């Protein structure tokens, strides 16, 4: 079983007057796991359902390898999908749930039994096969849904927030397990989530969605190191990046703040960003501590500098209390610069 290349070209979807997708272009390489990350209502599920063939695109095309598939019935697309609610059939046993796709393909009985048992074994739910979904735990239901998606050996696996209904502990082990299975089987997969730690931990690449659009499609590392837009900068990373609106003028000026930049930047309006963990405390920007939140070994500081509120992480061994005055340093090489539209300004080679 080898995955396919999945290519989305200019996907647009309207629901009446609602423009759910404004034009999605993405290419997934075979065997890759891509996460769709974005706030609620930004069109992640809609994109998935277009790929699955449940919805018809208003415009645009979908290709698996070089075959166009967006006119095909869902059953002819060779897709496995796990829904957020698992969507198991409550009147069938777990066995029959998993067997359902095979029965529809008229696979011989013995073969069905073999495949279902094998898949159940793979997911560790062999003991529950004769029960109905309502009588097993949430984690087992989720596995059954995954088994049902995998049993027909699909070429593409779509996962719509498969972990969001699990409790925190199981969620972590399920993450690792899905990741392992996906790599083992080599199926090109899409994982929808609005939990960024899930996306960053599991995916080869992440597509960050804002309303109806993909803001950036990159590896987790790139998203973190070089966010393409202020939206991504503010959405990826915890705590989120500090963003200041102001003007480039040799240095960056935002009311009351003047932050030196390396030479060679264009002028004009724009944004400057710095991650809380990149702020150092050996500079000239005066700030006052408003709040200290202890996060394990470090503390997250909420600071006020010239009327701007920002966050910073304390360094190890640093003693800070509310009301303290600190002198901040924004290291030049850690700054993220964005133009007036919020697009990243490529750092000049220095």
């Amino acid at each position, binding site marked *: 079983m080898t995955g396919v290349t999945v290519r989305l070209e200019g996907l647009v979807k309207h629901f009446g007057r609602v423009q759910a997708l404004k034009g999605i272009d993405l290419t997934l390489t075979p065997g890759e796991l891509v996460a769709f990350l974005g706030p609620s209502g930004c069109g992640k599920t809609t994109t998935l359902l277009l790929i*699955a063939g449940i919805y018809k695109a208003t415009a645009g095309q979908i290709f698996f390898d070089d075959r166009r598939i967006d006119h095909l019935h869902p059953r002819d697309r060779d897709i496995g999908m796990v829904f957020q609610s698992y969507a198991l059939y409550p009147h069938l046993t777990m066995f029959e749930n998993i067997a359902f796709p095979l029965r529809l393909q008229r696979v011989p009985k013995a073969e069905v039994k073999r495949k279902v048992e094998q898949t159940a074994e793979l997911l560790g739910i062999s003991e529950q096969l004769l029960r109905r979904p309502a009588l097993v735990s949430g984690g087992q239901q989720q596995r059954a849904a995954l088994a049902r998606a995998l049993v027909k050996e699909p070429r593409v696996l779509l996962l719509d927030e498969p972990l969001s209904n699990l409790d925190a502990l199981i969620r972590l082990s399920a993450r690792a397990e899905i990741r392992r299975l996906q790599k083992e089987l080599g199926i090109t997969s899409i994982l929808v989530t609005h939990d960024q730690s899930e996306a960053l931990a599991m995916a080869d690449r992440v597509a960050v969605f804002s309303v109806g659009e993909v803001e950036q499609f990159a590896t987790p590392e790139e998203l973190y190191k070089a966010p393409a837009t202020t939206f991504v900068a503010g959405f990826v990373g915890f705590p989120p990046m500090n963003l200041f609106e102001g003007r480039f003028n040799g240095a960056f000026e935002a009311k009351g703040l003047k932050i030196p930049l390396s030479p060679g930047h264009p002028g004009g309006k724009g944004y400057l960003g710095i991650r809380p963990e990149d702020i150092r405390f050996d500079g000239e920007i005066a700030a006052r501590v408003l709040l200290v939140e202890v996060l394990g070994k470090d503390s997250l500081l909420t600071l006020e500098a010239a009327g701007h509120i920002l966050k910073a992480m304390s360094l190890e061994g640093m003693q800070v209390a509310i009301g303290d005055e600190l002198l901040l340093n924004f290291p030049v090489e850690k700054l993220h610069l964005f133009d007036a539209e919020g697009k990243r300004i490529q750092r000049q080679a220095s």
Partner: protein
Amino acid sequence: MPLLPQRWRLLLVLLLVIGLPIATGLIWLLLTALFDRVHGLIPQGDFGSENWRFLWQGSVSGRPSIWVALLNSVMFAGAVAVIEVLVSAMAAYAISRMRFPLRSMYLRFALMLHAFPAISLIIAIFYILRILGLFDTLIGVILVKASLELPLGIWLMKGFFDHLSWEMEMAALVDGASRWTLFWRIALPLVRPGILALGTFALLSAWGEFILPFTLIVSGKSWTLALYLQSFMGESFIDFGLMAGVGLFYVLPVVLFFLLGQRYLLNIYSGGAKG
């Protein structure tokens, strides 16, 4: 020691008084059917085997055999129930799940149709059946009865389908089901409580139906039990014993149906997925 609180005893008496006429009717039916003669509610004479002669006499004064009428009644009620459940379920599924032009108008129209008294349509129905060649046939009345009950059936079933999860249907489509397979293998089994409820009501309503067969059936070979029973009323000398016997015979299948089916019927709403 009183078994019931004072207030409840009063209520009990009240209920008994209200129930008395119905109970009396049932007792009269039972006694009249079982004994030669009944004065008031006091049986006279022996067991009235004469009252049950319709069972073994091929024909009682020119009527068709009771067994023909019974068969007709069973076929009538059964066919009406099957048609009503099947058509209602399919129509309701389409209305609940699919979008098509005039959908909401259709829904309102269906409800309005149900508000029509069937009897006001009877002349038109008579003509239509004549033209179709279905007048005086069991099939004709079956179709009429089933159609008249469809609006209610569709509304009832739509409510059940509306509660199915969309994600589950999407899952079935991705799993490879066509709309048709999805309907039969996923949607329909999940609205089983609705089917049982609608089927039961359809069956009972058709079993007790009188006015439609009375108007649309003439020849004895198509008589249902209701017509058979009614035929005693027109005679100058009414044999009450015989009539009570036929009446009891007419009620028995329903009683039997409830006795055998009550386990399922009472569980209609307890998600009785185990059967």
